[in-house]
């Protein structure tokens, strides 16, 4: 088993190594090229949003009975991806797992950006997005309140809380590192920016003590969010009396799927990051292997969810549930269903072999496959459950339009663009926490 920190590092050298990614800009034109490439996607996304606001949701393939299309599937997919960041930063912190240290910072950034993408889609789907503030309880002239019995309102509170708490947690963790960069930065403007956001952090014993307490408390508060946010998202479906939605297994099944797709995204980001910035000694094989093990475990839960759904349809004996299940296997979306099974259940079993868990390249490929598979799962839950209404006269197959695809690709590009900006302006590994690791190994003097 390789270590969570390899090589010989001292307090100064590890800080310089991580800080260099921000202060020395080692990628140069390659970073710029990636930013420009993703900028086109961002522009496309903005254009699509502008067109959507002008024309309405009819530009998508949605129509009765499939009133929820890609937008809702994308929302569920993105919010699920965010969960791994919170799991790594909060749950693994409380469990004192040392392997979280070098991956928590960028995983939290991933959470923020993924949750932002997720939060956008329901708003885009509103039809009248300028009325979004109606979701808030505020004293309006009509004397109305939000409908508290609606899971969609719970969802709004859950995602808004999740975004806020994730941001606070991320920022509190960043403060000491911002101070480190403030004291290293050569350019006055850079130094000023870091100084401002570091709030004048001095590394005082009292500050460290308070910081540690607040960080643990935020971890404790974020931990229930790991479970609750995607549970609430799943209730958007499960509360509805629709075959394929109306299932008690949905909350745990969604949470397992969230961690599954989230850890896949962590690998998708970690593998290119460590080779781009030469972080192989910080993000070691041990991290990849542990993430792969989490994928195996959560993948098993997801597979159990698929099995339980099918079993309950027949065991429950409800003819609509049975028809839906058979439809998923043989109906118009059968290809999506079986591709999903291949991506989420069959191929990930390769990770039982240590050689696969230790191969960055294979894990990267598998993580892309799982991301794709989890997206198909979200699409399947939304589409296949809706496309057969109780009356055959109301049946309709959803076919995505170009705009549907543009919103998906645009959100991925925007996520990547935000992430590229993040690795350029903020340390992608926690310097202060890595120094604690160095300290534990020996008093570093490098």
């Amino acid at each position: 088993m390789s270590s969570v920190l390899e090589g010989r590092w001292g307090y100064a050298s590890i800080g310089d190594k991580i800080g260099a990614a921000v202060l020395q800009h080692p990628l140069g034109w390659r970073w710029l090229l990636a930013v420009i490439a993703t900028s086109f996607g961002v522009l496309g996304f903005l254009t699509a949003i502008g067109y959507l606001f002008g024309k309405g949701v009819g530009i998508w393939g949605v129509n009765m009975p499939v009133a929820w299309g890609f937008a809702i599937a994308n929302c569920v997919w993105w919010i699920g991806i965010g969960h791994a960041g919170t799991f790594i930063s909060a749950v693994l912190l409380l469990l004192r797992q040392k392997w979280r240290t070098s991956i928590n910072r960028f995983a939290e950034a991933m959470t923020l950006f993924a949750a932002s993408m997720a939060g956008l889609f329901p708003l885009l789907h509103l039809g009248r997005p300028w009325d979004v503030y109606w979701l808030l309880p505020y004293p309006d002239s009509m004397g109305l309140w939000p409908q508290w019995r609606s899971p969609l309102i719970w969802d709004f509170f859950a995602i808004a809380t999740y975004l806020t708490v994730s941001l606070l947690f991320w920022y509190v963790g960043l403060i000491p590192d911002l101070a480190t960069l403030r004291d290293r930065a050569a350019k006055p403007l850079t130094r000023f920016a870091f100084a401002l956001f570091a709030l004048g952090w001095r590394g005082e014993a009292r500050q460290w003590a308070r910081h540690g307490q607040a960080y643990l408390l935020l971890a404790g508060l974020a931990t229930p969010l790991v479970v609750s946010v995607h549970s609430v998202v799943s209730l958007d479906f499960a509360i509805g009396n629709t075959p394929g939605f109306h299932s008690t297994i949905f909350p745990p099944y969604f949470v397992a799927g969230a961690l599954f797709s989230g850890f896949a995204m962590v690998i998708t980001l970690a593998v290119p990051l460590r080779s781009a910035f030469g972080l192989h000694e910080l993000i070691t094989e041990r991290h990849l292997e542990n993430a792969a093990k989490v994928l195996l475990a959560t993948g098993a839960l997801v597979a159990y969810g698929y099995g339980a759904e099918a079993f309950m349809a027949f065991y429950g004996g409800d003819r609509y549930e049975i028809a839906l299940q058979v439809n998923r296997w043989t109906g118009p979306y059968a290809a999506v269903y079986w591709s999903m099974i291949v991506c989420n259940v069959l191929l990930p079993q390769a990770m039982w072999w240590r050689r696969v868990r230790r191969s960055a390249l294979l894990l990267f490929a598998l993580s892309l496959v799982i991301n794709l598979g989890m997206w198909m799962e979200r699409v399947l839950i939304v589409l296949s459950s809706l496309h057969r209404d109780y009356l055959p006269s109301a049946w309709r197959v959803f076919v995505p339009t170009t705009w549907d695809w543009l919103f998906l690709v645009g959100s991925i590009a925007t996520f990547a663009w935000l992430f590229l900006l993040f690795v350029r302006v903020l340390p992608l590994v926690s310097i202060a926490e890595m120094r604690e690791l160095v300290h534990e190994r020996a008093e570093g003097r490098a």
Partner: protein
Amino acid sequence: MMHLRSATAGNPAALMAEFDTADRLLEVARAAHAAGYAAEAYAPFSIEGLAEALGVERSRIAPITFVAALAGGVLGYLMQWYSAVIDRPLNVGGRPLHSWPMFIPVAFELAVLCGALAALLAFIASAGLPRLRHPLFEVPAFTRATRDRFFLVLFVDDLAAARRWFQDWSPLALHEVPR
């Protein structure tokens, strides 16, 4: 902020000693506290036991967070109850107006949100942040407090006595903190 002011108020001078290991800093901090000095320690990462060694009192961040989370949850619940039962009763499918299980998710989210905001504010206030200007930042060597050096500052009347006291601990360097 408060503590540094109070610690320095009676003591006109401050002397800073520089060390290169965390264990050394911990040792000196314990000795300084035992000797009755008003002392503060600075390190590039969190050192277990350092705050205790200096006799830093426990903070109230945890109880503040707890109370705020509780208040957020209770008030969030009451808001839903008031709006659904008193202010605008709506009959939705014959459900009871006070359908309490449906009020739990929003109350829970508001509890977490208020708790997290309170934890952040309590941390910032009790850590004396934000404070962008500070006498310590005037010491050039202090930039290494966020890098690889460990500092102990004594707030004293008599600089010479503090210098003598530090000699026993063989610091890498001694710096006077400008007033």
